């Protein structure tokens, strides 16, 4: 058993970091919206799903079906990330506009917004299964069947850690995710928009009195959170090369878990929570078998919350200082 752990430690670490980075990017959306609105945006899982399909659109439209190199590869990958961000951010803003703002304006309870979120989530899944995937991606009657992405990036070995190969796509996912995190952290802590977001999170009434346009801030929050989910969608698609209308479900739950684990409302907490979850799942699977992955991650969540009810980092968005 211990021998297994030693043998599989390094590959499990690399995989856990790569997968955890994707969790973390999605978790940002949950945590930001929660920080500002005290709302769990359960439709965020579909924002991620739509990001994967947005990214899929690029190779689909250009009819790319063989691995690329050099400038072409960089161009396509960047285009996929941008397309994913655009699709996800657009969805997130539309969600805010259609599913949440009307409720917020009328002072509806948070429970109503939660139901609205679940409804929007089902609506978007079925919309993709019944209409978008068959029509846009030209797959009649295959809306519920997973769609594969042709290989774009050759999976060459970059280097190895103690004899365990590390592939270029894994490093790319980890670096891209961490890069996005740093950029976002700077945005929230240094820019004017970021100050508005922090002010709204801290005290919405006072923020309005200070001249913060709260609707604009909420919109920006959804936009940024959605954009991060879009990056996650593109990175997921590039590394796992498939997607389907239901892909957001499990990711949504795991990313939400990561957000709570790290401390919901806390941006750095989302990163810590995502990576921790990714690693713990993979380490746990070595000991108990891969089918126990979910049990392990939720057990860890319960244990952490028992001793640190506010999550690992605890501190939330409103108290974060630049």
């Amino acid at each position, binding site marked *: 058993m211990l021998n*297994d752990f030693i*043998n*599989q430690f390094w*590959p*499990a670490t690399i*995989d856990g970091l790569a*997968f955890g980075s994707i969790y973390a990017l999605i978790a940002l959306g949950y945590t930001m919206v929660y920080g500002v609105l005290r709302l769990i945006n*359960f439709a965020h899982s579909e924002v991620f799903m739509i990001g994967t399909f947005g990214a899929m659109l690029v190779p689909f439209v250009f009819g790319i079906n063989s691995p690329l190199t050099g400038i072409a590869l960089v161009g396509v990958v960047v285009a996929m990330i941008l397309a994913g961000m655009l699709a996800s951010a657009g969805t997130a803003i539309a969600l805010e506009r259609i599913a949440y703002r009307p409720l917020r304006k009328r002072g509806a309870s948070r429970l109503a917004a939660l139901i609205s979120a*679940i409804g929007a*989530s*089902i609506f978007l*899944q*079925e919309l993709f299964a019944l209409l978008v995937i068959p029509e846009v991606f030209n797959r009649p*009657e295959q809306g*519920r*069947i*997973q769609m*594969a992405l*042709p*290989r774009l990036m050759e*999976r060459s070995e970059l280097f190895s850690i103690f004899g365990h*190969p590390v*592939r270029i796509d894994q490093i790319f996912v980890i670096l891209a995710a961490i890069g996005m995190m740093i950029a976002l952290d700077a945005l929230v802590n240094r820019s004017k928009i970021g100050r508005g977001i922090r002010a709204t999170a801290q005290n919405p009434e006072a923020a309005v009195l200070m001249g913060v346009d709260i609707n604009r801030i909420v919109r920006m929050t959804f936009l940024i959170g959605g954009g991060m989910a879009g990056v996650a969608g593109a990175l*997921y698609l590039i590394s*796992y*090369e*498939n997607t389907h209308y*239901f*892909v957001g*479900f*499990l990711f949504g*739950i795991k990313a939400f*878990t990561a957000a*709570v684990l790290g401390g919901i409302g806390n941006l750095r907490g989302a990163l810590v929570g995502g990576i921790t979850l990714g690693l713990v*799942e*993979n380490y746990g*699977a*070595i000991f108990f*078998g*891969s*089918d126990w*992955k*979910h049990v392990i991650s*939720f057990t860890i*969540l319960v244990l952490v919350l028992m001793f640190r009810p506010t999550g690992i980092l605890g501190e939330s968005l409103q108290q974060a200082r630049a």
Partner: protein
Amino acid sequence: MRPKTARLGGVLAAGVALTLGLAACGDGGTEATPAEGGSSAAAPGTIKLGFMGDLTGANAGIVIPPRNGAKLVINEYNKTNPAVKIELVEYDSQADPSKAVALAQQAIKTDKIVGLIGPAFSGESAQVAPVLEEAKLPSVSASATNAALSANGWKYWHRVLPSDNVQGPGIGDFIATGLAAKHVFVIDDKSEYGKPLADAVKSALEAKSVKLTTDSLDPTESDFSSVVNKVAAAKPDAIFFGGYYAAGGNLLKQLRDKGVKDAKFLSGDGSLDKGLIDGAGAANAEGALVGCPCYIATPDVTDAKVKAFADSYKAAYSADPAIYAAEGYDAATVFVEAIKAGNTTAEKINEFIATVDFAGVSKQVKFEANGEVSAKDIYIYQVKDGAIGLLGKANEAKLG
């Protein structure tokens, strides 16, 4: 957290079920109407057979070929201008057992069919068979392989292919003998189909004292790296996956990407679909082996009878016969033979089925008292140049 997510899952499931249900109701009205005429009473000199299975849902890809096979026999028979013509009524169950039962009632009471080809899947079969039993209506399934089905003492139920109890040991023997593997990694997807199949393969391998390592995965996940890392650490000669092609394709890709290149990859009939190759990518899928109790006529077949079937199938549907097409053809042939022999009532046809013994396309068709077919051949297929080709019977197949 768990209950909340479970509840969310429940809501989703209810939503999906509702959508499916509505869609299914919509279809039901038209589906039940016979293709020609529109009256539910059969024209004089015409009797009705039913075909039941998932014709429009997610798994339609493995139900349409047997439907086509069945249609082919019936059209061929009707062309000979017999005294009694056969009309095939289709029942689209969408693989939903409750819908299947309602359709079976309709088939018995309104359409008055004399025999049913299907139901296609095991779940719906378990629900529909008791209804048919009560109505004394014979059925022959072309694709339901759950082993427990034949243990119910049903007198009117039959299937034209061997069960999973035969498939697992067949594949296990092939791994131990045909591949001469010394160490096998067995993975299952914890489903009602995948786990028993993987267990059957395990016991067959244990009996041949092959070294085993095992793990399970959740097929709804996309990342199987923990399973893959275990396989990479274990360095087996062969890997068996009990599960469906969607997860199978992703697993195979992740294995090959992780450098697990030499170990043979095997799976069962749930992975016998082009989706396995699409999911894994043609290069990664190359050489993968899939076992199946079904017989798929490949273009290079030499047997005259099978070739004639493959040619007329291709002429009628402009596609090569796919999974279960030959079994669908044979299941319908059972009824055609019975009607040819002058049996036009359900009771008479069932008596005749107990005595049939003819050379079908997929195998010699002859039933045991419990409804199982006597022939127990398992076939091994291999992915070659991005397509699935027949390698041979499991007990004889050798890698080229």
